[in-house]
């Protein structure tokens, strides 16, 4: 019975147990299902994240900005130093014989340069070995290595910066096929030996790492695969937690399921963080190669490749610029591991381990070497492109910057400012240099410290321009040839002008003297204020403003009489625009910093063409420019002779504002127009006139960049005739003191000086002249 009861009891318990087991099982199944669902859901979510991020972020490449490529052709005004400078900037290595692209050899004035292939807007320039010979301040011969003469070739365009987004990540995209074999071998050998075998996570490596860490009682080794490292770089924050580790492993598995090893490797090579350049983060081997060696990745030799791999473990700890010894040790360790795995020979290791690190000395700054110019490029680009396109689409932007001109100008400006400011420390300066016929901006100097990305004075220091405005006043006058010519008499005598509100303005000359009756050209050449105001008032203020606008002024101006002496505030680049129009004889070309834009796939996207607009008649522009040459020859710009031979016939104008707060010089040669401002940021008197300050900088810049002489062609409607300078009457070459003066045809002086009437050839001369005028 007891057994029965027992059994009953048993049965009961069994049933009870059964019931409990059933409930437990159901609970377990339910929870399991739920867990499964959550896990699957989470995985799907992670998978989505992986897919989205991998496909999207992978291609976020900042626009890369290039300077002008150096054009090589026989007869080019190029010096060996200039070529050398360019090759250095481009990271060409000097060798005994340039068998590899990106290298050169030199023997005196002869160079062998193995150029790199490079895709320009108008097509690809293939790599070739060029034989260059210099003599007489020019590139005298250009041939291929086999002796075939070459008409024209260009070097690759110098990279001058990139436009990266707010999170300051910069990279140069590299395809899997472009990754050097030795780099991949080294990377796999050092970071993830079983990369090609595992599914994203390497259990053996984790175990090994844990064992090593336990033995060392600290984290000495990581068991992360390359895939895990990529995931960490790609999606995750820097926090260290188990949850993150789990996530990392899960995503690594998902990534491996979705993408091929090569795709993962490519993403890794582009994503990996390899250094810091101020605010700019250096990502990927492509950019790191340019950043550390100034060479494209495929040109790197074994020691340089292994150095990059060495950096993966800790770019700041092994920073080759700050800790060269550490970096070298780590690099040599990478080499040793490669040898141990049979990837390279003993000989290769020995050779590579002895090699220097090969870091290029140029100290990087976060905004590149040409922050002021890049600023201009960015502003011009933002008119046409969305910010995210510039920072992520990998556009290639070809600009007009001439690194050589920029460097020479920086040197000149720094040197001259040192001289000028021995006791005036706060002195600042800015300059803009452009091609006079093309409007291409060659160099922008935003301040006296080159490479310093602060206040860009060339673009943003809006200051009164003083006498730089005067050419517009005289242009307005000379465009009324029935009233004015170069010899027109002007009164340089005191005057007072009352404006509508009753204020009286009494302009004074710089030397506080009155010069009496002067000729129009003298008044401009010597920058006489009173004569200029009288002339401007008689021509009309509105006319002067119109001429300023014709010359390229965009900013609205207040039309006060003081405008005639430069009470109008402009930035140096705006002044450069005005003088560009004069420099090209009345043909206005909007200043451009960008030539072309290519897509990441090297396809032409956009071009900024050369625009030419005749806004000022050639004859009046010619007459004004004649006087601007006189300024340099015998007027306020005479001091230029200290820097440049007067035979260059340069034209220019000085400018000084009240209490010598601003010192300006603007002018041009046959090929370049340049503007220099010197003053103080706090707008206090700088104590320098235009000729004592800005002119010295301008002269030195021009001296350094070797301009072309200014030879102006007589426009069709201008004729130069001999006149008696005192009376302004027609004379002849033989007459004492006679000078040749250009006039606009139709407005030649009518009377003849006594010298002519005494000679007996006047009738025939007139006949001859009539004949030729008719014949022309």
């Amino acid at each position, binding site marked *: 019975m007891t057994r029965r009861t027992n059994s009953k009891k048993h049965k009961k318990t069994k049933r009870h147990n059964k019931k409990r087991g059933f409930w437990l099982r159901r609970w377990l199944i339910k929870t399991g299902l739920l867990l499964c669902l959550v896990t699957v859901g989470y995985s799907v979510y992670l998978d989505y994240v992986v897919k989205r991020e991998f496909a999207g972020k992978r291609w976020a490449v900042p626009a890369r900005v290039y300077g002008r490529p150096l054009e090589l052709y026989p007869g080019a005004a190029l010096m060996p130093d200039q070529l050398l400078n360019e090759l250095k900037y481009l990271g060409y290595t000097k060798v005994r014989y340039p068998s590899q692209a990106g290298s050169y050899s030199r023997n005196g004035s002869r160079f062998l340069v193995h150029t790199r292939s490079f895709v320009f807007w108008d097509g690809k320039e293939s790599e070739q070995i060029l034989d260059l010979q210099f003599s007489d301040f020019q590139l005298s011969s250009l041939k291929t290595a086999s002796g075939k003469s070459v008409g024209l070739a260009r070097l690759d365009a110098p990279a001058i910066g990139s436009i990266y987004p707010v999170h300051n990540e910069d990279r140069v995209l590299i395809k899997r096929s472009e990754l050097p074999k030795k780099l991949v071998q080294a990377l796999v050998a050092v970071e993830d030996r079983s990369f090609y075998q595992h599914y994203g996570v390497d259990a053996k490596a984790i175990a090994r790492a844990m064992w090593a860490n336990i033995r060392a009682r600290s984290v000495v080794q990581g068991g992360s695969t390359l895939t895990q490292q990529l995931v960490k770089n790609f999606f995750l924050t820097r926090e260290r937690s188990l949850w993150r580790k789990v996530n990392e492993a899960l995503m690594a598995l998902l990534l491996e399921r979705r993408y091929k090893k090569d795709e993962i490797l490519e993403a890794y090579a582009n994503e990996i963080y390899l250094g810091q350049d101020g605010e700019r983060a250096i990502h990927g081997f492509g950019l790191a190669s340019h950043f550390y060696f100034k060479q494209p990745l495929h040109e790197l030799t074994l020691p340089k490749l292994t150095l990059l791999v060495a950096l993966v473990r800790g770019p700041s700890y092994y920073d080759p610029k700050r800790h060269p010894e550490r970096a070298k040790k780590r690099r040599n360790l990478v080499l040793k591991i490669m040898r141990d795995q049979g990837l390279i020979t003993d000989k290769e290791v020995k050779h590579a381990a002895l090699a220097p690190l090969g870091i290029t000395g140029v100290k990087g700054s976060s905004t590149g070497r040409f922050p002021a110019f890049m600023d201009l490029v960015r502003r011009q680009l933002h008119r046409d492109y969305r910010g995210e396109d510039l920072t992520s689409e990998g556009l290639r932007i070809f600009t007009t910057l001439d690194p050589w001109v920029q460097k020479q100008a920086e040197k000149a400006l720094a040197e001259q400012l040192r001289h000028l400011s021995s006791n005036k420390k706060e002195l600042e300066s800015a300059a803009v240099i452009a091609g006079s016929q093309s409007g291409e901006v060659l160099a922008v100097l935003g301040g006296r410290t080159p490479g310093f990305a602060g206040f860009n004075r060339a673009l943003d220091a809006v200051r009164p321009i003083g006498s730089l405005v005067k050419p517009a006043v005289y242009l307005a006058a000379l465009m009324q040839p029935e009233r004015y010519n170069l010899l027109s008499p002007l009164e340089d005598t005191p005057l007072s002008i009352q404006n509508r509100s009753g204020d009286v303005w009494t302009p004074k000359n710089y030397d506080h003297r009155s010069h009496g009756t002067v000729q129009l050209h003298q008044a401009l050449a010597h920058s006489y204020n009173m004569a200029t105001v009288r002339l401007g008032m008689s021509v009309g203020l509105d006319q002067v403003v119109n001429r300023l606008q014709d010359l390229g002024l965009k900013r609205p101006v207040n039309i006060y009489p003081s405008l005639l002496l430069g009470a109008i505030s402009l930035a140096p680049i705006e002044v450069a625009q005005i003088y560009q129009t004069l420099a090209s004889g009345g*043909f206005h070309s909007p200043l451009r910093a960008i030539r072309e834009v290519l897509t990441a796939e090297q396809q032409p996207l956009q071009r900024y063409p*050369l625009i030419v607009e005749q806004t000022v008649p050639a004859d009046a522009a010619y007459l004004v420019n004649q006087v601007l040459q006189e300024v340099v020859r015998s007027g306020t710009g005479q001091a230029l002779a200290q820097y440049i031979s007067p035979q260059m016939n340069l034209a220019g104008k000085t400018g000084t504002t009240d209490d010598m707060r601003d010192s300006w010089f603007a002018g041009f040669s046959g090929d370049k127009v340049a503007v220099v401002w010197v003053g103080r940021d706090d707008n206090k008197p700088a104590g320098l006139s235009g000729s004592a300050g800005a002119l010295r900088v301008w002269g030195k810049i021009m001296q350094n960049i070797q301009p072309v002489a200014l030879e102006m062609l007589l426009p069709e409607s201008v004729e130069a005739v001999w006149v008696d300078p005192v009376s302004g009457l027609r004379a002849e070459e033989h007459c004492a003191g006679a000078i040749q003066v250009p006039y606009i045809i139709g407005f030649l002086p009518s009377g003849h000086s006594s010298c002519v009437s005494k000679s007996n050839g006047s009738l025939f001369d007139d006949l001859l002249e009539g004949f030729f005028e008719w014949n022309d």
Partner: protein
Amino acid sequence: MERLVITALVLLSVMLTGCLESAYRVGAPITERGHSSTQTFPEAKSRGAQQESEPAPISSEVEKNQEVQIAVYTPPPRFKAKPISSAAVSNLIQTATQQKNAGNMIGAAATMERALRIEPRNAHLWNQLAAIRLMQKQYHQAEDLASKSNALAAADRDLRRDNWLLIAKARRGVGNMSGAQFAENKANFSQ
């Protein structure tokens, strides 16, 4: 009386020297350029022709065509002045021509701009860029570029004429008929 005769003689000689002078002036560019052209002087023309292409043997020409028509006045063929450019620029001009012929106007313009960077004061390059802009129907640019070419053309009459004709077409393109007429007159005037 005697004075009158002398004056007349002197006047006559002056006119003649004038002619000679003008002849010299027109012909001058030939010596400078090697293959400029003129309309007035046959010797200049043949000299230009020799440089341009092989001169056809005249005798065989006459044998083939028995009937030789002699026109009262045949305007001498115009030989376009070849620009004096460096090898570099000549290469680029060739490239630009190929691009133009292939209908790649933007490419041709870019190539001409590259040439202009090398020789910014070569009037022929400005003229060719103007021609490209005209083909693109960018009339204002075409006109201003041709004017720019004129400003640098100096004594190159052929180039001036070509520029004025180009300006005339550009002005016609924007419906400025009187301006076009004026430009055409200038073209004929500069002949």
